[in-house]
């Protein structure tokens, strides 16, 4: 591993200054992805700014919702009584990710910022526009079994690996950041970006901007929720694809409100707004769910090895909605 300078500020502004002034500096929190990438030579920061001593780990009730500090551990959020009561979908998605050990290390902010698990991104002997812009995309004509079916470009077909983020985009979360120009809020759906011509940029964060918290508004999705993750072993594997589903169903089995998002299908957590509209006002039946799944998959396009996702996608959506409705 390349040597690096290590600093451990105790005030957010000092951390922001340290990264804003040095293009080769990176924040480190849990380190579960960054240390991995540094060992492999995929990322080579020359300075690490350890933010673990910043006071950003609280999970608080605030007007209209919950505020989860950027440094709250994935395990702490998944076990938090307020999260479990008010946003059970988030707890389900968190517990579907990684292992208990990793959830004890990984933070909310770091989870959002984890890099793709595309094998071509990880293998420094392969071309990858995300790791080394301009070198090409190894996955486009390569082994693209794990890759995108929505929103890709000819520069990058990688997917975002976070489970937590799929729930957060479905729940209309907002990301609070603080940077050299002060604080700002970013709607979760606008936080991650599509690859376009600049796949090296995963998010819309500006240099030096630090995630401080994620806000989740209160909603009616406290009962009929499910996170359906399809993977190649029962636990501790990245998703082939996943579905976050949340329903508000009235006494006549009519869907009053719905939230639906997919993971493992795009460069960002993929909100399915048109499919949500197709659910509202309809009876909570399998037929309704099938129709919504068909809407959700419009525009999907597969590559050589991931055509299975075109069939797995709608099946997983129906399964997620059925399980949510029965919860």
């Amino acid at each position, binding site marked *: 591993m390349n040597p690096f300078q290590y600093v451990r500020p105790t005030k957010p502004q000092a951390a922001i200054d340290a990264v804003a002034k040095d293009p080769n500096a990176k924040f480190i929190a849990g*380190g*579960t992805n960054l240390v991995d990438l540094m*060992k*492999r030579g995929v990322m080579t920061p020359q300075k690490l700014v350890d933010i673990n001593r910043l006071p950003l780990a609280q999970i608080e009730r605030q007007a209209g919702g919950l505020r989860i500090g950027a440094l709250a551990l994935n395990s702490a959020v998944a076990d938090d009584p307020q999260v479990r009561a008010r946003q059970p979908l988030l707890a389900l998605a968190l517990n579907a990710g990684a*292992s208990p050990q*990793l959830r*004890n290390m990984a933070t909310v902010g770091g989870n959002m910022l984890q890099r793709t698990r595309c094998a071509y991104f990880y293998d420094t002997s392969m071309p990858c526009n995300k790791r080394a812009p301009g070198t090409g995309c190894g996955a486009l004509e390569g*082994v693209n079994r794990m890759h995108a079916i929505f929103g890709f470009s000819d520069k990058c077909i990688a997917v975002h690996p976070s489970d937590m983020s799929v729930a957060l985009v479905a729940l209309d979360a907002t990301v609070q950041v603080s940077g050299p120009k002060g604080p700002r809020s970013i709607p979760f759906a606008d936080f991650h970006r599509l690859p376009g011509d600049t796949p090296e940029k995963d998010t819309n964060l500006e240099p030096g901007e630090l995630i401080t918290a994620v806000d989740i508004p209160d909603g009616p999705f406290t009962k009929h929720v499910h996170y359906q993750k399809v993977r190649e072993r029962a*636990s501790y594997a990245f998703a082939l694809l996943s579905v976050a589903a949340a329903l508000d169903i009235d006494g006549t089995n009519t869907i009053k409100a719905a939230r639906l998002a997919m993971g493992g299908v795009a460069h960002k957590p993929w909100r399915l707004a048109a499919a949500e509209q197709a659910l509202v006002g309809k009876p909570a039946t399998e037929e309704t769910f099938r129709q919504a799944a068909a809407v959700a998959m419009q525009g999907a396009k597969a590559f050589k*090895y991931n055509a299975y996702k075109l069939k797995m996608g709608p099946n997983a959506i129906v399964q997620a909605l059925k399980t949510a409705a029965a919860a």
Partner: protein
Amino acid sequence: MATNPEPDVPANHDENRRTFLKQSSLLTALALVPGQVVDAAAAKFDERIADAFEKVPLSLKVNGVKQKLSVEPRATLLDLLREQLHLTGTKKGCDYGQCGACTVHVNGQRVNSCLSFAVMHDGQEITTIEGLAKGDDLHPMQEAFVKHDGFQCGYCTPGQIMSAVACVREGHAGSEGEIREYMSGNICRCGAYANIVAAIQDVKQGGQKV
């Protein structure tokens, strides 16, 4: 897996990679340090390279013993425990957070020590497999692993036991299914899973203090 079109990385690939990384680290070091240190580095590889870089002071409590240390920022908690404190019970399996062999407790919570820089744990309490037994009295989980044959080759066992203790303490050992889910971060290539689950259930049902 045989039909999997994604080529598996052979085990020796990692070894080659590690050797390569060591050598390239050495070259980086050589470019940065004065002549006499280069000689020392060439004579005794990794340890001397670490000496050639700035070290950071670090205070830890490991298995109840206070340690005042000085580490290079690049040292992982795993490497610190094994190489500097000679606590070799904690194993290096994959070194990428995928196998769980390096599991230790930090401030009472189980973590992968391979994915964490030692300097980030300043002031924290670490418990390794060496810290579980009280003298000659094995920890109940260690006894249960022996009783139920919860291992074959034994390489994953320290990580399995540290994870198993945490699994019970967290309250995630309520059923076989829950144990399997909450032990999924610890891989056993010998496939001793059934006996590992039995050992954890035994401890949980026995109600002993873990």
